[in-house]
């Protein structure tokens, strides 16, 4: 990790699931870096500093995006496609975090250059494990070409 602490953008429509992720990051004392939006449109507005996110100080560029696939208004895959086809955003690692273990979803996600695909575990301890590993991997070890 170097310089500025990383902002993590969580795109999650289910408030309960968002709360789980938040609590995990809280345990890592990273909760203050976690930005949460509830649908695809808001995610794009956040990334492009539009609408209610027009103040770029309030919407810092994320170093990691946790993206659910089933999202209202704009689908997760659509958001992924837009991020990965925009040279300004394409290098931001996008980790798909979803309940869907459907093969078709995985294929579509990787075809659209998702950096990782994670299925939400039904068990808390597994969820915590996953979050911990995810945190270490992406926030500690992974190098970003800024």
């Amino acid at each position, binding site marked *: 990790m170097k310089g500025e602490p990383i902002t993590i953008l969580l795109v999650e*429509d*289910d*408030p*309960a*699931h968002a*709360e*789980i992720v938040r*609590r995990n990051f809280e345990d890592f004392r990273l909760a203050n870096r976690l930005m949460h939006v*509830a*649908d695809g449109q808001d995610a794009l507005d956040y990334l492009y500093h539009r609408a209610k996110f027009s103040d770029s100080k309030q919407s810092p560029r994320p170093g990691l995006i946790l993206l659910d696939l*089933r999202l*209202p*208004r704009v689908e997760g895959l659509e958001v992924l496609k837009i991020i990965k086809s925009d040279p300004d955003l394409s290098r931001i690692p996008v980790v798909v975090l*979803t*309940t*869907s273990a*459907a093969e*078709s979803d995985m294929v579509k996600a990787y075809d659209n250059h998702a950096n990782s695909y994670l299925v*939400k*575990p*039904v*068990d*808390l*301890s597994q*969820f915590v494990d996953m979050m911990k590993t995810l945190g270490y991997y992406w926030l500690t070890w992974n190098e970003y070409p800024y």
Partner: protein
Amino acid sequence: MKIQPAEQLSLDKTSVMIVEDEAIIAADLSGKLGQLGYQVVGTAAEGNDALEMACRLEPQVVLMDIRLRGALDGIETAEAIRRRIDVPVLYLTAHSDAATLARAKLTGPFGYILKPFEERELATAIEMALHKHQSERQLREQREMLGVFIEHAPASLAMFDRQMRYLYVSRRWRNDYHIGERDLQGASHYEVFPEISEEWKQIHRRCLAGEVIRSDSDRFVRADGSVQWLRWEVRPWRDARGEVAGIVVFSEDITERKRVEEALKEREGRLRRAEEMAHLGHWRYDLATGRINWSDEMYRIFGFQGHAGPAGLTLEEITEFCHPDDREHYLNAFDPSCRHDDDFFEYRLVRPDGEERHVVSKGELVRDESGAVVALFGTLLDTTELRRKERELQEKNAELERFTYMISHDLKSPLVTLRTFLDYLDKDMASSDAGRVEQDLYFMRTAAERMWRLLDELLEMTRIGRTTNAPERIGCVNVVEEALNLVAGSLAERGVEVRTALPAITFFGDRPRLVEIWQNLLENACKFMGDQPHPHIEIGARGLGRETVFFVQDNGVGIEAQYHEKVFGLFEKLDQTIEGTGLGLALVKRIVELNGGKIRVESQGRGRGTCFLFTLPGAINEKAKGADA
């Protein structure tokens, strides 16, 4: 008896034989004939000698003295000769008493020469006799020919005189009318067939008066009940003066041909119907003429106006119908060099009215006896409907896939919440963190409620189309009233003002489902009122009968254009902050479609209200109309 020596005979002179018992006269006659350029081949003085000589020499003319000494006189001799050979006999006579002349007349003489005679008279009489004899022979031959011709004509043919007596009849006529070998010469048709109808006698009379009457196919029921088809013609024939001398009757038994024709027509009809039912036409492309002949169904498939007839169509004419993108591929179907008999060609047609049809054409080479390719013969199947069904099935499959996917996702999601927060609850209770415990319970409760509602609506969704309530007659106004009662709580809570203006339409359909349409649309409108200070909903209808368009208009948050299609999708939720499972509008769409209707949404965008418009033709049917009356 004198016979001219053979070396003196000349072939180009007419040979004459003289029968004369007075030697002086005979010699004088012979001399005169010689001078006239005739060849006297022999002279006989007595009847029997004359007969023998005539048979041996076969002269072209015989000059016969009526009075002969001996057993036979001239008349008797002439009769005997005529019976043996065909030769004209001229009588020579000095006197002519009536009795003798009358007797001579019966032998069919070719002339009389009165003694004494001049040379010129002699020559004229001989030439006339020769000419008459020649004409008679020709006539006889012609009659003979006509007889043979008619006898063996491959048709039923009979010739009658004015009294309907048989003149000539063909063998076929004898067979067809079971006359056998009976001699018909001079017999009347009406004697031969006493049962002949007055109708036919009438036809005979009209033809004897000069008319020609014919029928191309006439149905006769025979005595045994079997049906016979005849083609016949009756026409008059005329004598030398142009008077009608009788009639000719021609008839042909066409029963077999008729039967074949009927069978062919029947088969053609069946083929046509089969092609119509299967949307399968057939065609033939003649390589020599470059023209294409179509079956009737081909014209229908192409939407071709009119019919090209047996001349067929040119390749250019029908290429016009081919979709421009498929033209090259399509022309391959008509190229004998690049086709294999197992190949089929798929392409699109554009009908004159612009309608696009999908077809599959299959063809094979037609060869003549020498094995040369002379034509292409093929079928063409209109697959438009099949394709549409296939596409529908694909759509249904895709929907089913989406459905199962959504179920697994949407049911799993609250389960993740439940289990995870259950674990949190454990921990938080152990650490006595009351605030967290309350939060944990809240999330769990919400998740459980969500699961319950989801299952409930899913069940409802699957019931639509599967289980139906008995259709009943109910006024449109009553349906909406029922729906309003069901959502009264939500309306009151949000303070929504509702205005209804509905026509006196009576539905005949599944009442609870119809109520669900308005119930869901009203609930939806309540949910998406946003911060509207004066929320109101307008319920109404436009148009007439089955075309009636119902609408539910609100002044709530509205829907942006890009979501207009999406709102009806299963589990689609545009706004996660709003309670709901994303099934309500999908449910409405399904009910509308089950009633043969369509639904769409109109909205000027976010914050500008929403209007749902839909039709229900299936519920506005004849039975519903009956109730109005």
